[in-house]
């Protein structure tokens, strides 16, 4: 395995307009920065109507009656639709991405606060909203189930009485690893440390909320849906299955998307309602949810209560980890994970360490809270897994009184062990952990920081240094193992080179801000030597792109990026044959020099890719058996996941009087394999780190005992600002993926996965003088202070 380290100053020297990989300004930015992007809410069609949704004010109640007559009498209202109306069409329920069903509009009872109950369509957005207040709903209040720990109690209220014979709130049990072997290791271990670690419910809170414009043409039956979706093709197929329409009658268009983070993977009732409304009324219908609707009803993330045990020798050799997880899935199981993975990729909770045994058990339950669990970074539960292992390893360091960085270094999987199969069956494709860790420690000045900390502690000051090392499993996934609702997780790609040598590449994935229009042009450029500015990236429109499962779980580069490289190679192979005809030599005698083929040993005899493109479309002869044109299409089925990793170090200062935490420094060394655009990678890392500050220190979707959501606006659901975040210090190592055509791994979620444990570890480390070994997120000043008083309580 080769790992290279690049120093930042070397990169600065790189050319500014690389033909291929390198720092290239984002092609999408001129339009986005100038406000010329086109988001769903910018779409306006002739005759378009507006929809607003009436939502439940309570978490659990039977619907006794709904009176919509006053709303219907509103002069600007065109239609008012309830669950009963939908039920008459067989549309009151829809499938979720986890083979559960979810109410489109509630018919029998409401199961979480802000659940969809009815909708109004009016000639303008204001009237639609006004008319909601004219709908009278009579609710019969039911006891809500809010506390996840009580979900399986005998006397717990049953939430899903819509399901046949459902007499409890149990969704599934899941386990991985070898329980007996793990218990055996625990029995003989010198040291066992146990902790309950909670990853509270958080929300992706993208800047753009969810919404759509639905346009159903009544004569042809053609459905066009402009929608905030991260997965246009997957959505289209689900609509096709539900409506019994052929896919070609449905066109899903994801225009510019203002952030997704997994929030825009599911199909929300609002989309279905808008389609129904357009079908019934025969006019285009727009629905854009407001901020409160987004926070209260759309896909949340996390909500795992994890009991963890770690076993080790007294010298600090980690032997085994086991965990028992209680997962809160809300009122409907809407998790988007490959079918065989109900707990996502939580199995990577063994982290970056070479263990003797590991075992995890999980129970997932319903509660009277919004459904989801799909989001975000990383939807497939890697965030929870990494947090668990990185927190429990720190608890072990605390008990052993060992430096947490040393403890990690001692237990890393060694470079020669890759590909490494974990005790839960995941095959890590490549990794070289120690150089990344050492680099982070060097950048931080780790030893010096520890000295400073000792001095400060002696003066009564609270300084903390947190270390986290993560390994992610991204790029879902090999179709033999992974599908969502039966759809394999492979991705198509098409490349067409025009006669003038300009190109169009069509992707199945969809950017929500990650910069696909730039990086995918660079991947093609790297392979075929056409400048990225001459390569147009087309995505987000099912009529114009090949099938694939979309962008989430950091899968775009590992899957679609591979597809883009492979399709370009296919085109290049054809170009080489055409070049051999043009240069009158055999194919084997040609040499590729990124942009042109030349005759081996005679560089003066060469043809550029642009010349080849013209020839491919021209009037001249082509080699025998070669058709005109220069284009190709493939579908890439990944052989394995890719396993990015990174070493993060966080330094915090805590004011002993107010318990206010200041993140002083954050050092992030990431390894995502081959780097396509280091600038975009840094951007992804910066965003993820800021996200981590939010989750570690302020974000939580909280509920009161009645199931009212306490986080209904951005005044209550806090997102960090530039003032809470330090200047990020980023670095990287490069350990290419051996099975990916360009060696790239994903980077979209690394920092979100890796930063919360680094920050929490730092804060807990600062509180060491108080004898604190663990404290749960979000570590707000109040929660830190309570911990200092010995009153730490879990947030849920």
């Amino acid at each position, binding site marked *: 395995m080769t790992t290279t380290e690049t120093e930042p100053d070397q990169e600065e020297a790189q050319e500014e307009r690389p033909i291929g990989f390198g720092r290239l300004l984002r092609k999408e930015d001129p339009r986005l920065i100038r406000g010329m992007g086109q988001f769903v809410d910018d779409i306006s069609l002739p005759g378009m109507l507006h929809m607003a949704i009436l939502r439940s004010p309570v978490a659990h109640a039977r619907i006794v009656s709904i009176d919509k007559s006053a709303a219907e009498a509103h002069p600007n209202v065109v239609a008012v639709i309830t669950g009963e109306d939908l039920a008459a069409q067989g549309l009151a329920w829809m499938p979720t991405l986890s083979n559960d069903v979810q109410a489109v509009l509630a018919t029998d009872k409401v199961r979480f606060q802000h659940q969809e109950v009815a909708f109004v369509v009016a000639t303008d957005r204001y009237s639609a909203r006004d008319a909601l207040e004219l709908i009278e709903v009579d609710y019969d209040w039911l006891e809500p189930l809010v506390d996840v720990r009580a979900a399986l109690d005998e006397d717990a209220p049953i939430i899903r009485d819509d399901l046949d014979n459902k007499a409890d709130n149990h969704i599934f049990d899941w386990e991985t690893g070898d329980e007996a072997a793990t218990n055996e290791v625990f029995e003989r271990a010198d040291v066992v440390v146990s902790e309950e670690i909670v990853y509270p419910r958080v929300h992706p809170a993208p800047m753009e909320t969810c919404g759509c414009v639905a346009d159903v043409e009544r004569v042809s039956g053609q459905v066009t849906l402009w929608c905030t979706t991260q997965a246009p093709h997957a959505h289209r197929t689900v609509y096709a299955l539900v409506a019994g329409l052929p896919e070609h009658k449905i066109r899903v268009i994801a225009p510019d998307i203002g952030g997704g983070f997994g929030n825009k993977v599911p199909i929300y009732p609002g989309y279905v309602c808008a389609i129904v409304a357009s079908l019934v009324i025969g006019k285009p219908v727009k629905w854009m949810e407001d901020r409160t609707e987004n926070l209260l009803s759309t896909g949340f993330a996390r909500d795992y209560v994890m009991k963890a045990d770690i076993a080790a020798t007294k010298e600090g050799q980690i032997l085994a980890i086991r965990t028992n997880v209680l997962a809160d899935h809300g009122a409907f199981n809407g998790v988007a994970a490959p079918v065989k993975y109900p707990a996502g990729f939580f199995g990577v909770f063994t982290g970056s360490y070479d263990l003797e045994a590991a075992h995890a058990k999980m129970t997932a339950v319903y509660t009277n809270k919004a459904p989801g669990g799909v989001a975000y970074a990383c939807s497939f539960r890697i965030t929870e897994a990494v947090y668990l292992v990185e927190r429990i390893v720190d608890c072990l360091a605390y008990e052993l009184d060992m430096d947490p960085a040393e403890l990690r270094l001692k237990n890393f999987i060694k470079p020669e062990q890759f590909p490494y199969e974990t005790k839960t069956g995941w095959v890590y494709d490549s990794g070289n952990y120690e150089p990344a860790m050492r680099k982070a420690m060097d950048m931080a000045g780790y030893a010096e920081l520890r000295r400073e900390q000792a001095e400060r502690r002696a003066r009564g000051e609270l300084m903390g240094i947190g270390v986290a090392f993560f390994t992610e499993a991204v790029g879902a996934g090999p179709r033999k193992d992974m599908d969502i609702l039966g759809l394999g997780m492979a991705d198509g790609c098409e490349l067409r080179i025009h006669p003038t040598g300009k190109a169009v590449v069509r992707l199945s994935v969809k950017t929500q801000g990650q910069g696909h229009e730039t990086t995918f042009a660079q991947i093609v450029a790297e392979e075929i030597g056409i400048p990225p500015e001459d390569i147009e990236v087309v995505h987000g429109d099912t009529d114009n792109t090949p099938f694939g499962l979309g962008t989430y779980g950091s899968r775009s580069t590992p899957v679609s990026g591979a597809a883009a490289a492979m399709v370009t190679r296919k085109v290049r192979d054809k170009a080489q044959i055409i070049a051999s005809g043009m240069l009158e030599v055999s194919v084997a005698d040609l040499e590729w020099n990124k942009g042109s083929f030349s005759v081996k040993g005679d560089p003066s005899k060469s043809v550029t890719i642009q010349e080849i493109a013209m020839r491919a479309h021209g009037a001249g002869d082509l080699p025998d058996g070669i058709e005109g044109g220069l284009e190709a299409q493939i579908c890439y089925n990944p052989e394995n996941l890719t396993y990015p990793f990174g070493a993060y170090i966080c330094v915090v200062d805590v004011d002993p009087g107010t318990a206010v935490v200041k993140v002083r420094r954050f050092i992030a060394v990431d390894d995502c394999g081959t780097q396509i655009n280091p600038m975009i990678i840094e951007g992804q890392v910066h965003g993820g780190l800021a996200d981590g500050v939010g989750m570690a220190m302020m974000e939580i979707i909280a509920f009161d005992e009645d199931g009212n959501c306490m986080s209904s606006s951005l005044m209550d659901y806090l997102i960090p600002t530039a003032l809470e975040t330090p200047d990020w210090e980023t670095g990287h190592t490069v350990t290419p993926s051996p099975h990916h055509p360009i060696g790239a791994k994903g980077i979209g979620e690394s920092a979100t996965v890796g930063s919360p444990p680094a920050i929490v570890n730092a804060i807990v480390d600062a509180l060491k003088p108080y004898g604190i070994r663990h404290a749960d997120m979000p570590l707000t*000043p109040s929660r830190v202070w309570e911990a200092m008083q010995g009153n730490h309580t879990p947030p849920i």
Partner: protein
Amino acid sequence: MQVPAPIEYERATSVEHAVALRSELGDEARFIAGGHSLLPMMKLRLANPTHLIDINDLKELFYIREADSEVRIGAMARHRDLLDSELLARHFPIFRDAERVIADPTVRNRGTLGGSLCQADPSEDLSAVCTALDASCVITSSDGQRVVPMHAFHVGPYETAVANNEMLTEIRIPLRPGGGSAYQKVERRAGDWAVVSAGAAVWMDAGTIVDGRVGLAAVGPDTTSIQPVAEALAGAAPTEDLYQRVGEIAASNCSPETDGRGTAAYKTHLVAELTRRALRTAVARAQRQEV
């Protein structure tokens, strides 16, 4: 997008016009100043006024000036003006301390002193500032003006002494020798409302505190000014013991509630801690040891 309920809009051209409109349009009409409290409530439909009377054209209410041993501030002075004012920074540094941590620049560019006081949100910062400084409020109607001290201005949470035919037009702060003031706030995140804030102002003579006041925010309905604090400070020598004691008095005179911003115990602790810190700085400033 959150949208308010239907509404009528009027634009006042003078104070007389504004109060006339207010009397005429009935109980459900509201003035709109910066709009940064009112508009969010309207979008959430927590406030549903029938009419908005826009007072942003009342240029006569935008001043900050010194007159008759007072600093006088027009009700429409914006957070941004209070932050930038050298006059205030010189006499009452508590304003700059507070304005640095109120909301964010976007809100500060619009939000006003008058709107802040009239909103009478128990978490709002400028009431604590004005209380600490012993300010009074000029309330105007078509019948003339009346002057109300801060403690009588706030009638309860979200309720003030301003009647339906009146408007707040000016805030007056007495200028007295030997003054020093400071503000302390703990927030969960920049731009967030206070978990707890404490403002302190002292007036000193020959090393002794002649008069002193503490104003608190976000710890209950009636804590903008605490009488026992003023009593403890009057005539006292500025020592750490005193700050400790006054912090405790403040803590035992507030009634915070546990919520998303923190537990009642934490907030009570903060009252003591921030009161001490604010007093320490206020005294140092009064003694010109620190600017």
